[in-house]
């Protein structure tokens, strides 16, 4: 056997051995599991630019949640996103795509409120048949306020009106 072949095989074998180690380490990397803490925006108002870019990528990725039946096409002047303007989650935005947004301390809420004054299932915001967004208090202990009035029935949300839940204030924006 020629010297060259053997040298190539010798180095090739080392390369293959190391390739195996690297592949194994990659498997470990992809195998880390546990709780996934998802990006929910900066606490400060001015989100960093690369973060915003990542958020936009994320916005494209997740599959739409339950579409409301008969949601219809979006009207002109309808709000396109929900913005948390005060509280721990200030700066978080959620795209409005006809899905129901639940708010509360429960882990499966769309917006998980880490707030002692919020109930576990505090309120929800959903579009009605005409695409008008409605906020409904879900029997919370401390109530949900639209502007200054405590909600008693499902109420249409005007653009930019503050919805107050505990320390958190959210509003709908174009």
């Amino acid at each position, binding site marked *: 056997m020629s010297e060259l072949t053997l040298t190539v095989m010798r180095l090739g074998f080392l390369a293959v051995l190391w390739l*195996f180690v690297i592949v*194994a*380490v990659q498997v470990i990397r992809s*195998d880390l*599991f546990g*709780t996934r803490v998802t990006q929910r925006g900066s606490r400060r108002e001015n989100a960093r630019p690369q973060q915003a870019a990542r958020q936009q990528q994320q916005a494209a990725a997740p599959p739409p949640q339950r579409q409301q039946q008969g949601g219809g096409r979006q009207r002109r002047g309808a709000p396109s996103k929900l913005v948390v303007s005060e509280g721990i989650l200030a700066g*978080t935005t*959620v795209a409005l795509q006809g899905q129901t947004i639940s708010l509360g301390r429960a882990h499966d809420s769309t917006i998980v409120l880490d707030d002692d004054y919020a109930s576990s299932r505090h309120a929800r915001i959903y579009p009605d048949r005409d695409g008008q967004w409605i906020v409904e208090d879900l029997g919370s202990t401390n109530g949900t306020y639209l502007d200054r009035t405590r909600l008693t029935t499902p109420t249409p949300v005007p653009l930019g009106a503050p919805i107050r839940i505990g320390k958190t204030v959210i509003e709908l924006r174009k």
Partner: protein
Amino acid sequence: MSSSTTHTSTIGAIGAPSRRNTELALLAFAVVIPLFAYINVGLAIDGELPTGMLGYGAGLGLLAGVSHFVVRKFAPYADPLLLPLATLLNGLGLVVIWRLDQSERLQQLPNFSAAAPNQLMYSAIGIALFVGVLLLLKDHRVLQRYTYISMVGAIILLLLPLVPGLGMNVFGAKIWIRVGGFSIQPGEFAKIVIAIFFAGYLMVKRDALALASRRFMGLYLPRGRDLGPIVVVWIISILILVFETDLGTSLLFFGMFVVMLYVATERTSWIVFGLLMSAVGAVGVASFEPHVKQRVDAWLDPMREYTLSQQGVVGHSEQAMQALWAFGSGGTLGTGLGQGNSDLIKFAANSDFILATFGEELGLAGIMAILLIYGLIVERGVRTALAARDPFGKLLAIGLSGAFAIQVFVVAGGVMSLIPLTGMTMPFLAYGGSSVIANWALIGILIRISDTARRPAPTPAPNPDAEMTQVVRP
């Protein structure tokens, strides 16, 4: 900010995927690498493809396939890396043992016999035991019932080599027994059994060992009577060292106990005590026990040992120095498989000193890869312990992976002259039935624990109140 829109997602546990296909792919890789090595050895020694290539590849592939099928069927959520890593080491060991069988120098030895077929048979028995563990051990917590039986079993296994007529003295170390035509190293099996005992015992006693203590200079000093267990284990390992004259076995059991004690109690003071006690014990025994003393001398000055051996002085061995030369002549990238001269290390070249062959023919780069593969096995064991939900499983996984790690350290350190040489063998790589079989059983238990640990928790019953929250109407 104005243009960024996003869905906020919730925080939730991600169910671990079963990863069986990843395991299969890695396993195929782990069978191909030894085949490559086999071809490489054949081309280097004979200049042609080795004749037994298909049979050998089929044998290794069959073993890997069977074990994968059993894992897929009976431990579907097990760790995807343990099996491929162990298979790769076993396969590489087989290739290098076969390569040493081809050596003309070794073939001229009076008691030469081809070792590779035996090793393949031992691997098959090992895989069979691995399969048996997965089939019979449905839940590792069953082992907890046998805590004290394991203690008795481990002591018997450890004492067996001392029984007259049964034990064998192999080059000074009395850690073998001879049953029928086979020589067995009971210590390899004892390490699994004793891990079960330590795990069951520490699970019950850990609160007493962790909480009843005084704080002194930043260390928690245990009460005198809580020192009892560690002193007993220490005395037993000293007795092993004195009567079986094997530093490796002694270090393995004491180190394993200290590791498990530390994990069970989270008290650094146990590590300090353990290190002090093992240092005192090792120095004390080495200063009066002649065989241990000789091993220590050989470690401190391997060149003198080599010279004495060359002069024909009985009881000295040239192997330690030869192993160092083998590593040295390998250099960074090695001489290439089948082209080294590590067969100069005569009879122990394929067992205790197999790492020297790897060091010479694959070089530093290859040795690092091999040590990393061992490290990954240990890492997966520790990760299994972290993920395990029950304290017994945690302690058992940490004990088994700790024992594995200590054994690799003791053997690799011995061959590389970092610590005195011992009679233990490199898990999976080295020629030896007990080692291969016991370590496959060890991997089997780890896979069983990791399957239990990674199995997704059963989904909780739906909460009937969840959707029925009423809107308060005044």
